[in-house]
Every structure is written in structure tokens, then in C-alpha cells.
């Protein structure tokens, strides 16, 4: 893994996702609205990070009214801001896009959010513009809407759902609308059912994928607000075990990673079966990842043990090993030793983990930061595997 040194300084949570080999997102065809936020590989100082990305500044000559090459500036923006209406901001969006000024686009989007506020009629105006505009405009209106409290007004939610279900629209437009539903605090059983139906619709393509992600993101929101995850997870587990689209199955199983609920014992059985039987390596690895945070770590260890002999892919075996450690810490070391005995390619991993626990560290987030990588198993975006 070439970027390993960068991981050393990344956020623990993201590190776990990334380095444990589960961060994965769609290839170029769907990258625009792809999965959970990609890993942030941070560096020890912003300076180093910025230096890599920005050319050296041109020779500085102090002088009056010297023109700065970047970025573009705008006359009349303060006046627009002062008297902003939905219409005036809408009119300015085209200029910002034409000038490829992403900062101005971001401003207009945020100003739209401010103007919409809690007003459902204004929110519906954004939906109407989104439905009728050509890319990249719809994303601007829908992102603006997503951040406004009005997106949770029943009339607005219903309108978004109706558009998302409309099979006469392009799937990418339906996907963009589904994405705008992800800031809901809660889904009713009826809404979950409608979104799940899109997720399981083979013809929905990218909309099915985003529907799955939206279910997962609202699960996170609801879980963090109220502790509720089970009904969403049941739907996701159904999707993860029945969808014909590998990417959708994978995503469904990935979504709890972002809130880490302790999965119940019945889920362990289902996931253990996926881990033994799914035909895709990625999906089996994801099921192994999911088993690392449950109500019953010992049962999870038993599932890893039961799956090990039948698994012949080294990368999946390595996943069983590290997720067993994540599930049970030092208590997993006897099982890890057993794995290393059966497959000597994993011996160094056993020795590494044993030494790390002997050092007095207990938090797996820190253990993992100190773990050397010996296998070439991380799948880069878009790479064949």
C-alpha cells in the first residue's frame, strides 16, 4: 500500500475504514455522486499539503492595484447578496458555471439555502429548477435544498420521492433527487419501503445505488439522534443479500460503517453466510468488516473461524484476520495464531499484532496505526480486481 505513511496521520475512524480495506467507491461512471466521503489523507501540516497542490507563487511585486492572477473576482456581488431573491441567484448561477468559478457556485448554493430556510414553497421551486435544468445546474439546486430545513417538510419530501420514483426520467436525475433525501432525520416505514424498492430495481442503475446510500445515511442520522438503526439495517441487509448488482450489495453492507451500531446476533448469522457464500471477493470482505462491531464478538470470532478454511483468496483471509482483531482485540490472538498456522503467509501479521498488544496499547484505532502492511490487497478506485 503505497500511501501507507499518509494513513499514519489520518483520522482514526477514516483510517479504520480505509486501511482495513473497505473504502471503496464507484468508478468514473458514477463518481460524481459516489459513495461515502473518500478517505482524507492528511499530512502533518497544512503547509506541506498545500505545497504539493499549488505552484510556487509568482515573484511578488508590491504595487498599487496589482492584478492577482487567481481567483476571479466579481463586481456587483455585494449588491446581489444584499437584495438576493431566489430568482436573482438563479440568474447568477449560469455566469458562475460559465466562468468555472466553483467558489462563486458554492456561494450561490449556500445563499439559496439561506433563502429557502424553512419555506416549503421555495424548496419546491428549487426542485422544479433542478428537474428542468441541464447538468451541472440540478446538483446546485438540490445541494442547496438538501442543506435547508425545508427539505424535511412533508410536501417537499413527497415531491422528491415522486421524482425519484419516476421511471420516465434519466436514472442519473433520479439519483440526484435521491441524494437530496439524505439529510432527512428519519424515514417512515412507508418511505423506507419506497426507497428500498428503487434500490432493488435492476433497471434503476445509479439510482439504485444512491437509494441504498440514502437509506444508510438516514440510518446514521436517525441512529445518532435517537439510537434507531434496526429497521434501516434490516432493509440494507435485505439489499445486501438479494440485489443482483455487486456494487449495490457492497454498499448496503458498507453503510453501517459510518455510525457503527452494535449489530445484533441475528445479523451475525446472515453476515456469516454472506462471508462464506457471496461470489464476489469484495462483498465477502465487506461482510467480514461488518462483523467486527457487533453485540457478540465471540460469535463473530466463531464466524471467522468457520469461514477461514473454505476461503482461498489471501486478501479475504487477511480481512478475516484483521477484523477478528478489531472484533475482540487481544482475545482474538489465539484465533489469529490458528489462522497463521494454517496459512503461513499470515504469520507476520500474527507476530505484529501480538507485539502491538504486548506494548500496552489497547485501543484498536491505535493498534492499527502501528500495524505494518504486508499484503497488496487494497483495491484502488476503478482498478480491475
Amino acid at each position, binding site marked *: 500500500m503505497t500511501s501507507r505513511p499518509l494513513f*499514519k*496521520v*489520518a483520522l*482514526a*475512524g477514516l483510517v*479504520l475504514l480505509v486501511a482495513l480495506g473497505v473504502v471503496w467507491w464507484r468508478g468514473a461512471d458514477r463518481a460524481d455522486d459516489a459513495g461515502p466521503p473518500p478517505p482524507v489523507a492528511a499530512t*502533518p*501540516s*497544512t503547509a506541506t499539503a498545500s*505545497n504539493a497542490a*499549488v505552484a510556487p*507563487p509568482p515573484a*511578488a511585486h*508590491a504595487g*498599487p*492595484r*496589482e*492584478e*492577482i*492572477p*487567481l*481567483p*476571479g*473576482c*466579481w*463586481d*456587483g*456581488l*455585494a*449588491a*446581489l*447578496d*444584499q*437584495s*438576493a431573491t431566489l*430568482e*436573482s441567484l438563479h*440568474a*447568477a448561477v449560469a*455566469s458562475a458555471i460559465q466562468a468555472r468559478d466553483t*467558489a462563486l457556485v458554492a*456561494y450561490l448554493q*449556500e445563499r439559496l439555502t*439561506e433563502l429557502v430556510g424553512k419555506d416549503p414553497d421555495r424548496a419546491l421551486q428549487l426542485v422544479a429548477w433542478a428537474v428542468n435544468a441541464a447538468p451541472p445546474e440540478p446538483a446546485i439546486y438540490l445541494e442547496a435544498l438538501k442543506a435547508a430545513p425545508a427539505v424535511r417538510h412533508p410536501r417537499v419530501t413527497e415531491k422528491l420521492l415522486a421524482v425519484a420514483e419516476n421511471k420516465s426520467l434519466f436514472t442519473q436525475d433520479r439519483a440526484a433527487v435521491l441524494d437530496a433525501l439524505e439529510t432527512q432525520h428519519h424515514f417512515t416505514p412507508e418511505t423506507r419501503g419506497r426507497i428500498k424498492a428503487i434500490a432493488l430495481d435492476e433497471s434503476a442503475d445509479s439510482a439504485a445505488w444512491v437509494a441504498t446510500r440514502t437509506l444508510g445515511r438516514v440510518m446514521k442520522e436517525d441512529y445518532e439522534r435517537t*439510537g434507531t438503526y434496526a429497521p434501516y439495517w434490516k432493509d440494507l441487509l435485505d439489499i445486501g443479500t438479494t440485489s443482483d448488482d455487486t456494487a449495490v450489495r457492497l454498499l448496503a453492507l458498507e453503510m453501517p460503517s459510518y455510525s*457503527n451500531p*452494535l449489530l445484533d446476533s441475528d445479523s451475525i448469522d446472515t453476515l456469516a453466510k454472506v462471508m462464506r457464500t457471496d461470489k464476489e471477493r469484495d462483498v465477502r470482505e465487506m461482510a467480514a468488516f461488518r462483523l467486527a462491531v457487533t453485540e457478540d464478538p465471540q460469535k463473530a470470532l466463531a464466524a471467522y473461524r468457520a469461514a477461514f478454511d473454505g476461503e482461498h483468496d489471501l486478501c479475504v483471509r487477511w480481512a478475516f484476520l484483521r477484523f477478528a482483531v*478489531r472484533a*475482540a*482485540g487481544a*482475545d482474538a490472538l489465539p484465533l489469529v495464531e490458528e489462522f497463521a498456522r494454517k496459512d503461513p503467509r499470515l504469520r507476520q501479521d500474527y507476530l505484529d499484532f501480538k507485539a502491538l498488544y504486548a*506494548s*500496552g*496499547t*489497547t*485501543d*484498536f*484505532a*491505535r493498534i492499527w*496505526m502501528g500495524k505494518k502492511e504486508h499484503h497488496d490487497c487494497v483495491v484502488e478506485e476503478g482498478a480491475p480486481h
Partner: protein
Amino acid sequence: MGPRLLWLSLLPGLALAQGAPLPVPTKTACTVEGMLDEVRVAMKTGSPAYRKYARLRLKEAAIAMPPEALGRAVSEERDPAVLEAVGAALATKASNAQKPELLQPLLSRASQDADPGLRAAAVRALQGSPSVEFMAKNGDVVTYEQLVRDSSPEVRKAVVENLVTESSGIYFGHNPELAEAAVKVAAASGDPAVASRLLGEVSMEAASPEVVRKLTGQLRSEDAGLRAAAAKALGGVPGSESAGARRSLTSLYRSDSDLAVRKASLEGIARLGQAQSRPVLESLRGVDKRLDPELDAWLSALQKNLQEWHLILREKQRLSP
């Protein structure tokens, strides 16, 4: 006003739609003065979105701006919000160019301005830059230990925010210098609220043995808030320091009669050993009956054998906030 016009005036939306054209901004060249003017207008009368845009745009442009112009603006600005925006642009430029000396005008404002609001703004402007490292490279003429003794609570609060943000946002908790700065600044502050927040929120993951020793020394502080913060922070020290830290915290729980200090000691012990700390926690039952329910909550959370501290803490807070 005739009847027809009166009717139209009752429908202002319609009148507007048919009347004045919508104002659309037009592109213009960027100049230092123009951008500074824009920041001043935005900070004074702009919407939150416009203020954010103007601040970000100035930061972005600062990379190509002559440092003298920004330094001058930092030295002369009288409005706190504008000083913070211009100072942040200068700090971005300093870190981008790896020139710590560019921060000097900002450090002067932070330490010497007569107006506490402007001093606080100058401190806040450093947020998001590697300020601890850059202060050291400027010869430690201005340090956070000095700034945290400011008479203004607003300045002291800005110091804390900077260190907390720098530890988590720039170094992701893995920086020994930040751990050291937090412990030193907490000791220097004389403000228990400041010290508690620093020790409670700056990661001790990379703390050196020397810093751990200082932190342990703070368990004997006269201020109970500081003792509690130090106890909680000791829970986060590196594994190589955990045995000593555990002994200190166990002894603290037995000897310190302050409820908050004892509560923090339990958290520190739980964090150091996670599931393995259960026997130590059990041994403390009955020392203070008021805290036995708290102890039980930790034991229940640890019973689940979760392996990541943030998950254990979440489970415990569910049982007993």
C-alpha cells in the same frame, strides 16, 4: 396613482418580474485592495454565505498576493472580523510558503493590541495553521503560554480553540508538540476552565514520558477542575505509559475526595485498559458509594468487549451520561 397601477402594486412579485432586470454580477480583475474592500463589506453587511465566500476567496488569493500588502492590512485593520479574515489569509500564505516569519505582524497584534477584541481576532486568525511550530520558529517571542495569561477571557478562549483544533484538525492527535503545548499552557493559564478544556480535548496519544510526568503532577493541583481534567487526559497517554498512569489514577481515586476527580479517574482507568481494566475497576467498588453506579456503567460498557475507545465511550454514555 391610477387604478391599474394600484392593482399592479398589490402584486409586487409580478411588478418586479416585469420591471427591473435581475442584477447579475460581472467578472472583474482581482486586486489586493479590491479583495480587502470586499471582505470589509462582506463582514459588515453580508449574509453568512457571503462572509464565508469573501474569507475563503481572500485565503485562496493570498497565495499569490504580495505578503507586504497582507502584512500591512493585518497591522492596520481596526475591525475584529476583518482582522480575523485578513490574518487567516496571511497565516495560510505563511504555511503555504513555509515562511513562519510572515506571521510576525499577526503575532504582534495578538500579544500587543490594546483592544482585547482585536487581540482575540488575531489569535483566532492563526487557527488552522501549524501555529505552535511557527511560533517556535519565530523564536518563541510570542507563545500560547504567554497568550493564555491574557486578561481577556475572549483571548484565552481563542487560545484553547486554536490548540484543540490544531491537535485534531492538523495533526489528528498524533503530535507530541501539541500534547506538550496543551499541558504547558494548561499549567500556565491559571484559568481552570481553560485548563480543563485543553487537557480534556487535546490528544495525549503522542505525549512524551516527560509530558506524561508533568500531566501526572497536575493530579496534585489545588484546583479540582484541573485535577479532573488531568485524570481524564492520563487515560489517553501512549500504551508504554499506561501502567504508571493506571497506578496514579487508582491511587487518585482512593485518595481524592472530589466527586468530579473520582469520576474522571474512572474514565481514565477504563480508557487505559479498556476491557482489561474491569478487575481494577471492581477493586474500587465501595471506595465512594456515590460513584458505584458510575462504576457499574463502565463495567457494563466494557463487558461488550468493544475494541475502540470511541465506541466504548458511546456505550457508556448511553448507560450513564
